[in-house]
């Protein structure tokens, strides 16, 4: 006796969250059944393995049919074939567009066109995420990038919580930030997402002009051009000395690593200002994080600055500029340094 056909269709489409998870994670039906058995569901419900197999197949088939709709979430809301309560629809979309940080960390800053099979293969072996799941996540990233447009259409719904993270992914992809270098490996996706959010809030066109789409993914070109003006802070020897003395006076006795700071001040300041000045070139924008780590994080770390000292220093460093009489670009400095300070603090860890 072999089963030829075995289906279950409900008027309201049944969604089993656990099976959905397994499906999203790219497990085959056989693996999913094995995992479900291991979860002890048979004992809880008194079902047999055959029942579980049939149930899993059924859910997989439903998800497979839903996938077409999930690629364009507004379609899922208006389609008539599957009757799914709104809360469930939201869950479906949210989960479908959720991603593994490990995966995203790998593709962060890379082009989001569908990765070649080999790329995905590499990522899959490296992260232990199934190839299927990698492919789905890659696709959802490109869906998110290609659109954001469906967000407007689905405005009936609040954006899924994971959407902020997509902003980061798309922002990184658009600006092609380098994140794969060895010295950046210690940074997590969370670190980058944090930085991305700060930058989106302060450094993009949308940040200054509320008319623009608040999801604007491009840096404010004018702002980047202007940043060249900051160079005076390190180019003008007097200004640099004055800045140093202001910071040193304020921090004397408060910093555990005062002497190291004093010795390194000019190097650090030069580093931070030069990063700003370089941002006019696209190529250098890509290296932003490499530069920040090289020019600031690593020197501080080699001198064993505690995080609190870094915070003190950066606060004082940015504030003292206001007391420099000869410096006219206070607003520009604040826009730049305010964001950078947040980023650096986040990036500063082992």
């Amino acid at each position, binding site marked *: 006796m072999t*089963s030829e*056909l075995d289906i279950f269709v409900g008027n309201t*489409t049944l969604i089993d969250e656990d099976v959905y998870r397994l499906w999203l994670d790219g497990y085959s039906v056989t693996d999913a059944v094995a995992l479900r058995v291991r979860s002890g569901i048979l004992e809880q419900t008194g079902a047999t393995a055959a*029942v579980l197999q049939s*149930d899993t197949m059924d859910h997989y*088939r*439903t998800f497979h049919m839903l996938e077409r709709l999930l690629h364009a979430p507004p379609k899922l809301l208006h*389609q008539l*074939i599957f*009757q799914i309560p709104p809360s469930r629809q939201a869950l479906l979309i949210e989960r479908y567009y959720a991603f593994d940080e490990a995966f995203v960390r790998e593709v962060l800053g890379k082009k989001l066109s569908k990765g070649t099979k080999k790329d995905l293969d590499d990522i899959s072996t490296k992260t232990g995420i199934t190839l299927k799941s990698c492919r789905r996540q890659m696709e959802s990233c490109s869906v998110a990038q290609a659109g954001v447009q469906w967000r407007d259409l689905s405005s009936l719904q609040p954006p899924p919580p994971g959407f902020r993270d997509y902003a980061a992914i798309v922002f990184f992809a658009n600006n092609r930030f380098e994140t794969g270098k060895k010295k950046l490996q210690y940074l997590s996706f969370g670190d980058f997402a944090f930085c991305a959010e700060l930058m989106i809030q302060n450094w993009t066109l949308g940040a200054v002009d509320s008319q623009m789409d608040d999801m604007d993914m491009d840096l404010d070109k004018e702002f980047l051009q202007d940043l060249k003006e900051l160079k005076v802070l390190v180019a003008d020897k007097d200004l640099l000395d004055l800045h140093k003395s202001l910071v040193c006076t304020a921090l004397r006795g408060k910093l555990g690593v005062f002497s190291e700071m004093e010795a390194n001040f000019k190097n650090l300041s030069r580093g931070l200002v030069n990063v700003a000045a370089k941002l006019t070139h696209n190529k250098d924008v890509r290296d932003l994080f490499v530069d920040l780590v090289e020019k600031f994080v690593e020197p501080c770390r080699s001198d064993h600055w505690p995080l609190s000292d870094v915070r003190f220093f950066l606060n004082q460093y940015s504030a003292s500029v206001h007391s420099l009489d000869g410096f006219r670009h206070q607003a520009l400095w604040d826009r730049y340094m305010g964001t950078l300070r947040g980023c650096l603090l986040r990036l500063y860890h082992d």
Partner: protein
Amino acid sequence: MPGKLKVKIVAGRHLPVMDRASDLTDAFVEVKFGNTTFKTDVYLKSLNPQWNSEWFKFEVDDEDLQDEPLQITVLDHDTYSANDAIGKVYIDIDPLLYSEAATVISGWFPIYDTIHGIRGEINVVVKVDLFNDLNRFRQSSCGVKFFCTTSIPKCYRAVIIHGFVEELVVNEDPEYQWIDRIRTPRASNEARQRLISLMSGELQRKIGLKVLEMRGNAVVGYLQCFDLEGESGLVVRAIGTACTLDKLSSPAAFLPACNSPSKEMKEIPFNEDPNPNTHSSGPSTPLKNQTYSFSPSKSYSRQSSSSDTDLSLTPKTGMGSGSAGKEGGPFKALLRQQTQSALEQREFPFFTLTAFPPGFLVHVGGVVSARSVKLLDRIHNPDEPETRDAWWAEIRQEIKSHAKALGCHAVVGYSESTSICEEVCILSASGTAAVLNPRFLQDGTVEGCLEQRLEENLPTRCGFCHIPYDELNMPFPAHLTYCYNCRKQKVPDVLFTTIDLPTDATVIGKGCLIQARLCRLKKKAQAEANATAISNLLPFMEYEVHTQLMNKLKLKGMNALFGLRIQITVGENMLMGLASATGVYLAALPTPGGIQIAGKTPNDGSYEQHISHMQKKINDTIAKNKELYEINPPEISEEIIGSPIPEPRQRSRLLRSQSESSDEVTELDLSHGKKDAFVLEIDDTDAMEDVHSLLTDVPPPSGFYSCNTEIMPGINNWTSEIQMFTSVRVIRLSSLNLTNQALNKNFNDLCENLLKSLYFKLRSMIPCCLCHVNFTVSLPEDELIQVTVTAVAITFDKNQALQTTKTPVEKSLQRASTDNEELLQFPLELCSDSLPSHPFPPAKATSVDYSSFADRCSSWIELIKLKAQTIRRGSIKTTMTVEKASPVGDGNFRNRSAPPCANSTVGVVKMTPLSFIPGAKITKYLGIINMFFIRETTSLREEGGVSGFLHAFIAEVFAMVRAHVAALGGNAVVSYIMKQCVFMENPNKNQAQCLINVSGDAVVFVRESDLEVVSSQQPTTNCQSSCTEGEVTT
């Protein structure tokens, strides 16, 4: 020219890409009705076209309005080649033809293509202007309402129930016409869909005409089926019950509403009649006068004294005069005569209803069934479908005579079905023999009906169980006892029916789904030889199915089956039998005895041991089941039951027959002969297997119940969550081990596994009950078995269940006490019995009394009858009961509506095979939904194999049903049924085809919690002057 149909095409969305180059579509729409076609403009380069067309107007006969569907075709414009069809929408405009139903059809419809499935949606608005009073036109029957629901629809009241209407139309199947060889599969499928749509329109119109002739205005329990006879043609047939229905004007007026249909019904007359006790208003019509003279109040004094005590001594007269059932007093005879005369005007006194207005069902008989094996031949003249008509007439005649032999004049819960394999066709009909109250069957004014019903007073809860036939002249051997409820009338020990459990019946514990499953191998044969082989097998199949049912019923510790449906399916090399029913423990019937196993070789010690081991297992199972289903009837001592009734005359006649093409009616004696107890003899391995298979049925996991009737006996506190589903399984048998046993085991496993899967899938709804579980078996190919299940899972409140299950028992005890005050002092004892500790030891009587089950386990008909209870109780008493009952109803209502309904979302269309929606009130019926779809694929693998293909198709069918209901302005389909799901595959060619036919009633429902708001406001308006009250109702 009495009608103008107006159609407007608004917009489309999610259209498929038809032009690969631009990834867009240039869509336009053709609107066709009859032979007239209109076109919209082409909307260039869009997947979401906005046509916003003018109103297309069709001026048509109302006959056409009824027959023809509106056909909307969406096409892609192509300048250089032929336009490509994207898909079609068929809209049945019938709901627009009756005044109370929908006024406009407007909404998004899925665009359906038989090859590609749903491809986008189209927004359409349809209206109909009717010019004349349509009832004057005899060719059309506009205005006759159709309901699939097999009870009187919720917001209507039955004035008269006229009776059986049937019709069939035949045609050539386009799939088998010569032209099919040259046209595309799509064209062929569409021709078929269109033809069937036309034929069902025509059928409905013809049935409507018959209803008008009977002076009715509605068809209830309308069941339409297709017989795909292949080469020999296509038959569309329908049966139904003609009624005159009255719309209840203000639904808020009879709040509080109940979930159960008949409870509502009960309250209606009392609320509508301002003065229930006035008998002074003299009867105005002769008919009324006639019935009035039989009114219980008049015969009360005469009857009450004699019938209680002298029942068994009541002289039996008129034996052998043809009409059976002569017992009862003069009233009985009069009632009988009257019923008879009312019913004998009709050719077939059949009713497709399964639930009835209170008082309608006076005497319920047992199951009557008839089957006939026919050889199909080409239908030569489609306009004169005489052969098919004759076949059915023959079967109905048989059913009628069976019912008559049982002392019943009517058949209720009647249904017909066919099973076709190649050129052999099994026609089956079954129903429940019954005696009905004539008052609903006659013409009379509304007031007359109401008045009579009040006088007559409500039948007792046990009434319908009492035997309708004469105990000294029983049509089959049965063991009778005095009714355990009223102690006055006699009841059989087991009762089988095809109807739903009457809502006022007293049930102990809960019910459960009971299935008998059976396969029999058959040699492949041709034509006549094949038909003979099948008719030879049928009696054995029926016998075994019945034995299995009886055994399983006893194993559950229950004594009655409701909703019995036996399906015999014929295949190339086997016959399958599947019987489903809901077992219950009726308080009025005696406690079922156990099952005893007897070995044939008593000398073998180890064998003996084995037998006793089995016996123990069976006893344990019975005990376990009793606990599981909460069956703990109050014990009754021997003296109360009274002296055992004298053994009935030995006369076993099987009222069931298989007639071959030769019309020969076989009468079989299937009784086991005289035996002392219900004994299973284990004389060979086969029998052993049988016993084993009895024990393999696993009860549903805790928190689950299942039944195949409308509502689960013993549960009445439904919460609002429902989930309707369809599940299909096909298994392939390995041809090597095809023995009857292996086959049986496979089939049994298939059904059991299917049920287990359902329980697992729906585990999140616990506690819940699967209601209206409907299994359909088909044998699409040699070694394939297909089982289709449609059911609805309904959640219920477990805590309340405990309280409410008690109430019916208590109520019944109260009832019993009021009924029997004069008789004996036992009511007190009974009351004490409701306490957990039983003062009485298990009565010896049970083992003695049920000693002859075997005599009747084979007999097909189990009978019940309501004695003239009405006579014994005055109308005053009834009024009291009603008053007493209403506060309880109030309380229940409040409790039930307490849980908030979480899922009141927009655009959701509920579907259910039941006639009601738990926690909600149906406020309007919008019309019948009857849809037929074909889906075909030539890329089976790409669509996910057979499972993927069928899964998608069924989901699409649901979607199309929901869309049509939503367009009518409804939010639910009740009495939904998937009548056909024919699936054929050819994996080698990568092809598959499936036909699905579904129907149901589109309705508007309002949540009870919403209604409560209305009703709480209602009293304030009612308190004001009567003139404002009038305004409220209008």
